[in-house]
């Protein structure tokens, strides 16, 4: 069990916890956005491949 003094952070909780929460948000956004960007690029490449196959036939 984590004591309440840990969460209180010596009276600085309203600065310390938002600081760590924003850091988590930035890290999560980076990972999510990068993966989304790669998936979109893979879809575009696949579409280009299908278009090329259609043109060949």
């Amino acid at each position, binding site marked *: 069990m984590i004591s309440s003094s*840990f969460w209180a*952070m*010596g*009276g*600085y909780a309203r*600065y*310390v916890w*938002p*600081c*760590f929460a*924003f*850091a988590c948000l*930035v*890290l999560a*956004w*980076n*990972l999510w*956005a*990068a*993966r989304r*960007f*790669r998936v*979109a*690029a*893979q879809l*575009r*490449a*696949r579409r*280009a*491949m299908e278009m*090329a196959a259609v043109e060949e036939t």
Partner: protein
Amino acid sequence: MWTWFYKLASPPYVYGVAAALIPWLLGGAALAMVYGLIAGLAIAPPDYQQGEAYRMIYVHVPSAVLSLTIYTVMAAASAVALIWRIKVGHAVSAAAAPIGASFTLLALVTGSLWGRPMWGTYWAWDPRLTSELILLFLYVGVMSLRSAFEDPSRGDRAAALLATVGVVNVPIVHFSVVWWNSLHQGATIVRLGAPKMPGSMLWPLLSMWLGFMLFFAAVLCIRLQGEVLNRERQSTWVREAVKS
């Protein structure tokens, strides 16, 4: 050495290396950050002047260091792309810019949250804070310039030029606390002589620093794969890669 350098100019090689590195980099980042967070938040003692508020350094310092490191990586990749006309350089630069902008914003927001209890204000037009804000504008400028041209190769060249010229701001951010009177504290870790922090506070910080660096490398690899796919869409190797 040169063979390795030339290999790095090959998009399929870069794509494959990035794919192999991603799980290791993410795993290493997770381990380093978990240790850094536990040791930094729960084990390290409070600071004798700043009390518990100093714990914000465990995200502020790594993000601030990363904001400068990423810009240097972006500028170096841009310079390589401009001088040797290596297209992968533009891809690295494009992949690094949004990551760098997000970590610069994180450094500014966490610094401002630290500034309120320590300096009594969220923001001051202090040399360190102002030059870091300029760094954020440079990142946004590089990203905007790249997408401002209909011809992507012209956008790449213009963005690379701005990124290369803008690197002059990196030493300004770093040395601003030495060159001018600043509210911001001076160097604590990267300085001549031993670090000013005791080991119990320093090791978690170094661990978070390593974790952030590995995380950046992982996210850069993921974005780089996307950039390479976008740029090489018509190549045979991309068709093979997408098929598999």
